[in-house]
């Protein structure tokens, strides 16, 4: 319980063990607590990552919740803090506050077909749930991963997707917004993949993560294909400065996305999702 007694506002130093380049602008860091010990979290949770003197940003955990030894984050460099993080190397230290937020309810989906729908870097927050599902593979019906990237060069975790696709107990479909001469796969938006995936809509749980518009269309497409709203979960993104309900930045209607989310059951937020600029 010592973790719960810490001041939630103070970052803990974590040493970078390894950095892996995923895409031209996206990288994965493996972190271990500088002071020793492990890091327990649930799939879908995020941390506030601090770069010394530069700033702090919310980043989902992308590693395996079954492996408490190291903490894994996959980040796309888009601005000041994430770019500074991109220039860090093994041996450097980042600050970590967390884990925060609600998890993907993997165990509640036992007995169902499980459909993961990801767009862009949205595959990273889903990966822990995919690992967890595959560690409990016999508990599920079908396991389907639907993934959309901008171009073939933007496909995150490509080797892993290929490996998953090679398994007999997993179905993987990938699409890109814009192909290139070497690409012979699907072209189009992710929701288009839903109709092709063979899952039983009446007993399906779907976990969706990506840009908000993509999630909105995906939820509609899942519904149209017969999946009930209470079987669909989305991970919301809002500006976050504290991660624990104090700074007010992540508010969305009555929700603090940092602690009431980021993972929400669709039927509970469908009305809010429909309101522009909320």
């Amino acid at each position, binding site marked *: 319980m010592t973790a719960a007694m810490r001041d939630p506002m103070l970052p803990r*130093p974590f040493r970078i063990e390894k950095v892996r380049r995923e895409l031209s602008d996206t990288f994965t860091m493996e972190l271990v607590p*500088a002071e020793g010990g492990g890091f327990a979290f649930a799939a879908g949770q995020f941390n506030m990552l601090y770069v010394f003197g530069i*700033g702090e940003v919310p980043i989902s955990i992308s590693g395996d919740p079954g492996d408490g030894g190291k903490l894994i984050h996959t980040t796309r460099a888009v*601005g000041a803090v994430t770019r500074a993080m991109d220039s860090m190397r093994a041996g450097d230290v980042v600050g970590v506050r967390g884990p925060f937020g609600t998890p993907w309810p993997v165990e509640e989906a036992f007995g169902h077909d499980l459909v993961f729908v990801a767009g862009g870097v949205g595959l990273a927050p889903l990966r822990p749930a995919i690992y967890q599902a595959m560690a409990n593979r016999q508990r599920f019906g079908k396991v389907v991963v639907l993934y959309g990237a901008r171009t073939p060069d933007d496909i995150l975790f490509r080797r892993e997707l290929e490996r998953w696709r090679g398994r007999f107990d997993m179905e993987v479909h990938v699409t890109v917004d814009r192909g290139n001469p070497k690409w012979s796969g699907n072209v189009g938006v992710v929701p288009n993949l839903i109709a092709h995936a063979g899952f039983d809509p009446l007993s399906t749980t779907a976990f969706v993560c990506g840009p908000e518009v993509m999630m909105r269309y995906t939820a509609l497409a899942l519904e149209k294909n017969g999946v009930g709203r209470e079987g669909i979960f989305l991970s919301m993104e809002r500006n976050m400065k504290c991660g624990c309900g104090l700074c*007010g930045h992540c508010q969305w*209607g009555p929700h603090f996305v940092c602690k009431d989310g980021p993972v929400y059951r669709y039927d509970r937020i469908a009305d809010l999702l429909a309101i522009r600029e*909320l």
Partner: protein
Amino acid sequence: MPGVDDPKTVTAALDMAGLDALIAALAERGYRVIGPMVADDAVVYDEIASSADLPAGVGDEQDGGRYRLRARGDGALFGYTVAPQGWKRLLHPPRQKMFAARRQDGGFAILPPEPAAAPMAFLGVRACELAAIGIQSRVFGDEAAGDPGYRGRLARSFVVAVECAEAGGTCFCASMGTGPQVEAGFDIRLVELAGHDRHVFLADAGSAKGAEMLSGLNAPPAPEADRAEARRRVSAAAGAMGRTMPAATARRLGEHAEHRRWADIGKRCLSCGNCTMVCPTCFCTTVEDVTDLKGEHAERWRTWDSCFSIDFSYIHGGAIRNEVRSRYRQWITHKLSAWHEQFGTSGCVGCGRCITWCPVGIDITEEVQAIHADGKGR
């Protein structure tokens, strides 16, 4: 010190010397005594040494977009209503250091926190302000994830509340159920009777700490006739407020997200954020990370932020709330409606500050009235 069975039975009638004795006793126990004084043509809450620092004979005129001090023609010390900035500035400071860190062994170490500042005694907390403190302590008070700074400062503070014997120009606490009677959350409660013949502060205790302090002043108990007169004046103030908040509509404002009134307000509101800065319950903050020139020493500062700024909702690709209409809607629906779901009460205490300090006089009660008058009109 004599043992006190029920602190609430301890009363005192303080004259000016008695009030000074209270201020001195608080200072002697190590409290920084903060009370009202006049600075820059406004009442501010700042450190005081004696009753001579208090705003004698000063009243205020408040209306939409208007604040003026006036001479009351009597010697009342608490004859103004609320200062532009409430106690939030002291309990939830506009700029606060969250931590300092130093580079070390290729990484960094968080430096031990600085020792806590002296405890504060607040003199002259109004009912609405006390309610606002209660609201903020629910926001920051969560044992697991709350703000230990806020909790600590409040727990160590001493609260001397003052009941309002007159309503201010923009007050509507009576309709929010937060005042003008002071009911809980104080150590000592005062009500001032300032007439031509006499000037007295009737005091009673609300905590053991308050009872002990009051008994130590050796003042005579407050006569029942005076207390009845004070109660009459305070209820008269309750009846004299010119504004009311339609509570049911306010609470359900979130259901009117697409109401046309938002666009109308969006045309008037300057998005200046004044309302959020003066509101005693607004708690939003941002953080600023800084380093020294060599990059060896870093600090994180937390500063007040406002949901009216465009950056507030920024995520990669653009802000969520681009239109002013959306930002005003966020402010008021959070305050009046979502707050109930988040923290169990309204986030508005009816102090009227946002009305007084809005440069274009936007009135939160009037905006809700307009939506209320439309029924469920969309």
